[in-house]
């Protein structure tokens, strides 16, 4: 069985932002290879990993793209002007250490003393002393992601960038590695461009045409001082959270009930995820083609979309177990 934390280290080291997921997908494909019957990319660079079965098609999705930054200009002194891909609070960017695809890294600086800077007040400093020097290394259209590696800390927690949603990918890979003799036809999908509008999942679902699908993604937790009010009734360390709804989707009750039964059967402690805003691949799965039954299983996460996020390893491991249990469900149970 694959180790979630070890996988996460590999995925974060190879993190790529929306639109640049192909290289992340190739790493995931290598990891999935020994367990898969079929592996392929589609037109939007979604990675589809299939474990063949004679039963109904089940699609499980986690997105491999991370939020990131796109170079739009290099100023006359070699400082880099950028735009965001995915949602950022601009004040989180000041001081962040970022890494480009070619390995060059830099720090994000701010041109004024505003507490809440505008995007146009920020720039990336890669330490070069001229425009020519920067242009040798970085071009317009290049992208970068947060630096940093996942680390285990006390209380069974792990911290690091991109729990959203590389931890979802790690969980799916762990689940994949546990499954043998599956009756159902299983599609583990590592989607693209979720952070910019849940786009990859649309075409992935169309190509697979599953009977039902669900996404694994992070959700906000309510168990820390910085949490948005009203606080989510979800905490780290209380198990995976079965999604009722988020800002983009109301999960089909049949899928929710099936997940609860699966958790009870396998004696997996679970929570309930109701996220007031945001969006996940479940929405694109549900609204694809003529409509697909859809749900989600979420990992409680603190400090989402900041350079360092936090989840509970216990929640992740139990989530993988729940995914495996859901794949066993005879689909005649879902109308």
């Amino acid at each position, binding site marked *: 069985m694959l180790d979630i934390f070890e996988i996460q280290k590999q995925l974060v080291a190879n993190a790529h932002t*929306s*639109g*640049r997921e*192909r290289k992340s997908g190739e790493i995931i494909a290598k990891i999935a290879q020994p367990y898969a019957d079929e592996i392929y990319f*589609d*037109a*939007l*660079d979604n990675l589809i990993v299939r474990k063949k079965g004679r039963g109904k098609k089940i699609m499980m999705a986690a997105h491999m793209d991370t939020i990131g930054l*796109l170079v*739009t*200009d290099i100023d006359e002194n070699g400082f880099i*002007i950028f*735009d965001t*891909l995915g949602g950022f609070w601009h004040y989180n960017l000041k001081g962040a250490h970022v890494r480009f695809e070619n390995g060059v890294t830099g720090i994000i600086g701010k041109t004024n003393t505003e507490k809440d800077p505008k995007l*146009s007040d920020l720039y990336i400093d890669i330490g070069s002393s001229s425009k020519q020097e920067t242009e040798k290394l970085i071009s*317009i*259209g290049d992208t970068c992601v947060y630096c940093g590696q996942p680390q285990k800390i006390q209380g069974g927690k792990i911290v690091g960038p991109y729990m959203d949603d590389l931890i979802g990918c790690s969980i799916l890979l762990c689940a994949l590695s546990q499954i043998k003799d599956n009756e159902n036809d299983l599609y583990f999908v590592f989607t693209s*461009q979720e952070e*910019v*509008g849940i*786009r990859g999942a*649309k*075409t992935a679902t*169309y*190509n697979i045409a599953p009977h039902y699908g669900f996404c694994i993604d992070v959700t906000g937790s309510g168990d820390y001082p910085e949490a948005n009010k009203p606080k989510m009734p979800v905490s780290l360390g209380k198990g995976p959270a079965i999604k009722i709804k988020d800002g983009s989707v109301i999960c089909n009750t049949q899928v929710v009930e099936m997940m609860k039964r699966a958790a009870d059967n396998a004696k997996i402690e679970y929570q309930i995820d109701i996220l007031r805003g945001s969006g996940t691949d479940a929405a694109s799965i549900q609204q694809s083609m003529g409509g697909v039954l859809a749900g989600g299983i979420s990992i409680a996460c603190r400090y989402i979309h900041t350079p360092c996020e936090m989840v509970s390893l216990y929640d992740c491991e139990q989530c993988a177990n729940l995914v495996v249990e859901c794949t066993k469900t005879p689909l005649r149970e879902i109308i």
Partner: protein
Amino acid sequence: MKELLSVLSNLNGVSGYEEEVRDFILQQIKPYAQSITVDALGNIIVFKKGKKTRASKVMFAAHMDEVGFLVTDATDEGYIKIGSVGSIDPRVIIGRVLEIGKNKIKGIVPLKAIHLTTAEERKVAPKLKDLYLDTGSIDKKEVLGDEENAGFTHLGDTICFSTKFSTFGENLMKGKALDDRAGCCILIKMIQSPLEYDTYFAFTVQEEVGMRGAQIVANRIQPDTCIIVEGTSACDLPDVEKDKVSTKLGKGPALSLVDGRTLYPSDLREKIIALAQAKGIKWQYRLSSNGGTDAGAFHVSGKGCKVLGISLPVRYIHTANCVANYDDLLQTEKFAFAIANGLEE
């Protein structure tokens, strides 16, 4: 090329009412295409045989519709109230002449003479609901008619800018709807010329109100690659901050990186850049990340496809007078041909 663009620019085709533009385009392309379909929404879908077949389906797309207005009401005194189709800043129509319906009845959008306004009033830009068209009519009956007689217009009739295309300055052109009659112009030229490979073309409808035509074209044709030929915002004006300039006139066609609906794949873009260098075509990046094109609908429809955006830089899009550089138009055309004839798979 200028003459063709002149005719296209002067035709009226507000989103949802593209007939005039569609009829002209059909006339231009009929002798040259192997198959032409007009679908339920009025999109034109064209298949043109080339010298060779291509391993995958490549499609070029441009939209026929322009932003404009609809007649929503008339006051008892005969002034016409209007609603917008697509996004238009109401400030750009003040003082302008607009034309209504098939008969192109002219009206102006007035503002009270300065003598009659207060300093406070002058600080605030009027909203569309406060503006109206003066066609010189004396009452509502003349405008909208009654049970016995028709008026010269009706509720829901379309209204366009009355701009006539012209050239000026150093190689500049001005006219309405260069976004995206410029794209339509280039596609017509491509269909009228011999091509290396079999190629699809789509003249879409209702792009300005949400890329609606493109969605159904994509579902029907399911191309593997789609190249959108558009008119995009150039903001190379004196009071604009450097990071908002997006594209400049005179620097050639603009290649899209990202916009509000699409991340343009970098592998396809790099291939195209290599083609441009090989053919000595001038090009620039489209540096803005806002707005949207038909690519937004194409790349996520059905099984999805790779997309590319090449655009003519145009100042003052969505106003009565868009301005573009004629050389840029020729380079954009050259670029489109290079892609059509250079993309082997």
